């Protein structure tokens, strides 16, 4: 049994979720000594097919991880052209039954984030840095389905735990303009939303920094962002790309060839979770914590249904 060889291709390795995937790949590399090739694609749709061909044509890689919806079209063609090549599509499920899918339930994690934010906002001035705006905010990057998924979960969660809190969502329209993220967040704070959920990639860095500047709250996404604005980050909705890729590679290395099909990474499997920041956790009232645990159980056992955005 030869050395396992893995490639990963995406345009987003530098952004939250991509970072966690790279972390997982690197961990697998150190732990199992696999060959690893990371390919950062640009944003030109014209390039993708050639890039896939370059990766797949020698059959050099056992697994090729693919992340990013703009690659889907080229991926499907490559998968048809190189039927023996196994592709892992991260963060979604496509029509083809020849691929491996690592699917995340970001709406579930966002549901809990929404519930937490709603309940804290509900405390009003009883909670440090909270005003009486009765609103929580959301800053999305581009207005696209995945981000809508986050928003949907967030809204459902807040409605579930604190029905009289309104959610104010905004979309920056770009993932690359932190200054815009900061301005938007400050505008939300001005309108009485004291907690803002950041689902905006690099734009979202502006959200975190704005929360520190305005001394209000933010919720991070994808990776642990507690350190970006200590004291101002309530928690982070982790989307554990690292766990997903690591476990797949582990299976492969251990000789269980990964076969086509969908793997779901949700609250139950630990693929998504809400991590409350350590510096905030002590301040959170017990009943809120209890409620969060209850919700989590409910989602895991299916008694609480979280809908994906259509």
């Amino acid at each position, binding site marked *: 049994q030869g050395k396992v060889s893995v490639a990963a291709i995406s345009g987003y390795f530098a952004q939250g979720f991509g970072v966690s995937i790279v972390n997982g790949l690197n961990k697998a590399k150190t732990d199992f000594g696999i060959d690893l090739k990371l390919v950062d694609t640009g944003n030109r749709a014209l390039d993708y097919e050639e890039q896939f061909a370059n990766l797949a044509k020698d059959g050099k890689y056992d697994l090729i991880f693919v992340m990013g919806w703009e690659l889907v079209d080229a991926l499907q063609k490559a998968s048809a052209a190189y039927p023996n090549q196994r592709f892992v599509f991260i963060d979604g499920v496509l029509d083809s039954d020849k691929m491996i899918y690592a699917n995340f339930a970001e709406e579930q994690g966002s549901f809990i984030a929404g519930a937490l934010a709603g309940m804290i906002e509900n405390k009003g001035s009883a909670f440090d840095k909270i005003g009486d705006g009765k609103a929580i905010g959301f800053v999305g990057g581009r207005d696209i389905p995945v981000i809508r998924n986050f928003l949907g979960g967030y809204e459902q969660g807040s409605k579930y735990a604190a029905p009289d809190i309104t959610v104010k969502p*905004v979309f920056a329209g770009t993932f690359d303009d932190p200054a815009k993220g900061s*301005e938007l967040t400050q505008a939300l704070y001005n309108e009485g939303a004291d907690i803002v959920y950041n689902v905006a990639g690099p734009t979202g860095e502006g959200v975190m920094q704005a929360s520190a500047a305005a001394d209000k709250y933010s919720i991070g996404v994808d990776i642990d962002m507690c350190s970006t604005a200590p004291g101002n980050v309530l928690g982070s909705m982790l989307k554990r790309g690292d766990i997903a890729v690591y476990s797949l590679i582990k299976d492969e290395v251990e000789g269980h060839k990964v076969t086509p099909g969908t793997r779901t990474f949700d609250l139950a499997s630990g693929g998504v979770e809400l991590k409350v920041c350590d510096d905030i956790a002590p301040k959170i009232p017990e009943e809120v914590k209890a409620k969060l645990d209850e919700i989590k159980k409910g989602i895991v056992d299916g008694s609480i249904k979280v809908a994906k955005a259509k």
Partner: protein
Amino acid sequence: MEVLDKLLNVALLVATLRTTAPILLVGLGGSFTTKAGIFNIGLEGQMLVGAFFAVLGSIWSGSAFVGMLCGVAAALVFALVFALLVVTFRANEVVVGLALNILAGGMTISLMKAVFGTRGSIVGHGIVGLPKVQIPWARELLGSWAPLVSGYTPLVYVAFFAVPLLVLFYRRTRLGLYIRVVGEKPEAAEALGISIARIRYVASLLCGLLAGLAGAHLSLGYITMFTENMSSGRGFMAVAILIFSNGDPLRVLGGCLLFGFADAFSLRLKTFGFPSYLILAVPYAVALVALFALSYRSRPRIIRETLESMRKLLSVEPGRADADNTPST
């Protein structure tokens, strides 16, 4: 009414000043080249390398100030290359400017990959941002209006104070005068032994200085991080302003405030649920409309011409009329 209250308040004005500052800095930088008769479309790139090297310097030295200097130095190098090609080699300004913009984009990403192993953005890594300036008396004097003058990062103040300084610079200093002369009538400068090339170099470097500061402000003041292409069109916006302000500092300020306001205001509209992509286009659209509106027979000029016309008629014409009426000699 309530909606208006929510839209128009101190916070909006503060946001306007915040969004204005980076464009203003780079716009004032461009004022030097514009006045010196150089069309500098490379502002965008100078700003971008300024932002990148400011972050790099800040990480390396642990000091925001040193970071700022690094940003300025990088922008100055770009400005020098620009001047070298445009002034010495007489290459086309638009070509060189666009190429430098492309270079800035590619270079920052390559370096980011070489230094940090990733692309996209640099956050954390011990970047030290510029501190906020709290003006002690602001609270007492202005009450709830205090945020209007207090609590910005230093380069915001620099941007706004640079405006009167530049006015003075052009009116009362020799260098300022020479820059204007070189732009308006190079032959005059040449005949008097003023080196056109040297003045253009100086103007270009001064431009690089302010563009570098604008970049440093973007990555250390406005926000504390670097992302790919984080100047996102601000340099181009500044060029548009420069065209219809002709580089006059006060008019540059006016133009920048207009866009700062459009930007800040449109962001607030977003919270009302307007489609983000259309809102995002607002500042560019405002810039375009302003460009078109002002070039529609360039209004200030027509007023000036009419005044001149009237002055001529009043002061000189009567004498001529006399000459017309007295058939003598």
